[in-house]
């Protein structure tokens, strides 16, 4: 079994994204996430460069790796051509593959994202579809959205969209064979396997917390992680 540090080093994206870091801090200075959270891309570069297995595992179990918005601003500035945004993407994948993500609050929310965006893309062919942004679960969208949601047929028609109908145009219904192609891509590229792992580790965590007794009754856990 390769260590986590070795697995990082084997990932081509990782190799491309860290050459050597001089701790200049320009990535942290440009990072929007660092402005709002206790998060510093410079420190991420420092930890992975140091290559200490325990520290890297602690990172994979922490909220830290989930703060990044993947905007890639850091890439545009680094004087050593590193890219912490990509390093984060690799760390996240290993955290999901190994189940470390369930050890942090933001990590646990991976389940919500997987169940929302992850299933929407396979069901509708869109990452976000108006149908799933139900005002009941998304009070943050406010009353205007609630009105749009209720009147979406008419609203989208006026916007010249082609909501859920065959043919061309924005938000058109994606044809079955196209959807099947998308599912095949997820299957062969390991996307489905990763989704299954997120479900599996989340259930194990839910069981450990006494919030679920079988994988099909995760409601309490979902409620818990939505509000924690």
């Amino acid at each position: 079994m390769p260590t986590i540090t070795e697995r990082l080093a084997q990932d081509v994206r990782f190799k491309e994204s860290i050459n050597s870091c001089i701790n200049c801090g320009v990535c942290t200075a440009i990072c929007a996430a660092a402005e709002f959270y206790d998060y510093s891309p410079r420190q991420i570069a420092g930890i992975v460069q140091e290559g200490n297995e325990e520290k890297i595992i602690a990172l994979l179990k922490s909220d830290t790796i989930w703060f990044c918005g993947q905007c890639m601003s850091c890439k545009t500035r680094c004087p050593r051509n590193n890219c912490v945004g990509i390093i984060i993407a690799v760390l996240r994948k290993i955290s999901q593959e190994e189940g470390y993500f369930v050890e942090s609050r933001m990590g646990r929310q991976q389940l919500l994202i997987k169940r929302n965006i992850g299933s929407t893309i396979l069901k509708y062919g869109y990452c976000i579809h108006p149908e799933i942004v139900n005002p009941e679960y998304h009070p943050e969208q406010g009353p205007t959205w609630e009105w749009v949601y209720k009147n979406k047929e008419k609203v989208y028609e006026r916007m010249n969209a082609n909501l859920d109908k065959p043919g061309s145009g924005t938000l058109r219904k994606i044809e079955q064979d196209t959807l099947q192609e998308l599912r095949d891509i997820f299957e062969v590229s390991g996307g489905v396997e990763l989704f299954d792992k997120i479900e599996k580790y989340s259930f194990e965590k839910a069981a450990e917390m006494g919030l679920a007794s079988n994988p099909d009754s995760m409601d309490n856990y979902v409620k818990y992680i939505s509000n924690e």
Partner: protein
Amino acid sequence: MNKSIVVIGAGVAGIEVASILADMGYNVFIIEKNKNIGGNVAFWHHLFPNNRSAAEVREYMNQKIKVPNITLFPNTEVTDISQKKNVYVVRTNKDATFEVGAVLIATGFTPFDARRKEEYGYGIYDNVITSVDLEKKLERGENITTTQGMAPKRIAFVHCVGSRDAKVGHTYCSKVCCITGVKQAIEMSKMFPDAEMYCFYMDLRMHGLEYERFYKDAQENYNTQFIRGRVSEVSENKDKSIQLKAEDTLSGLPLKMKVDLLVLLVGMEQGKDSDKLCDILHLHKTPENFIQPQDPHLQGNVSSRQGVFIAGTCIQPMTINETMQNARSAALEINHYLLHL
């Protein structure tokens, strides 16, 4: 033996080599593309490490070339160099031809064009200037003000602009800008005793004997704070002051700061003059685009081509004193070569 030499570039290095070789009895032709001699020192005001006036160094150079066997060709550029056995034939855009025993390249450096680091706003925001602009202003005796005519209350200096930065293709340290920043911060503080100075650096490279003393002096007596972090970007406020962003890496916190004037400490790069000569003569270059010496320890002034020598900042970033010493060693090297031809 051909006792003539062509020196390309009338800056510190070229003139020092020329004057020593002239002393030894050689005929020296200096080809200079500009009207005046002095290279980059021509527009400098005060020099580290002792704040002496750059005019004194220029005066030294002016005196040095006033000897019969040095001929200066100003406003002239080399267009071609060919070789016939041990003789080099140098042609210029003024249709002059020189047949000489050796060629010295002393084309110096070009200050980095700060517009290439667009995120620092040079050429976009009025109150962003370079270290070179500041020297020029001081040399011309201009008042230093913001573009609104106010005395600056807070001035920041950005280190490593165009140096140590893979994004602009310059991975090397330009060696002189840290101490230039300290020198200019002290000068500004003397001019504006109530103002605050901030230097944003990645590493402070105080390699000269006196530099550390300068640095300490700036901290203790000239309101200068050193913040370890590279500036990520700047923007302009409504009142034309400059907002900058960096991380104070020693405390691990991102910071924003409003300053009245931002000075970019621009580094050195090789300009098109040395590129052109390297093309004509097929000289080897370092990965940093400087001219590669034959042997960095033992033949530092010998190019990859016999009879073609190099001196000064076309080899690597150097201070003026280092350039002087380097030029003297180049003169000895050329003399040795011509004596043993």
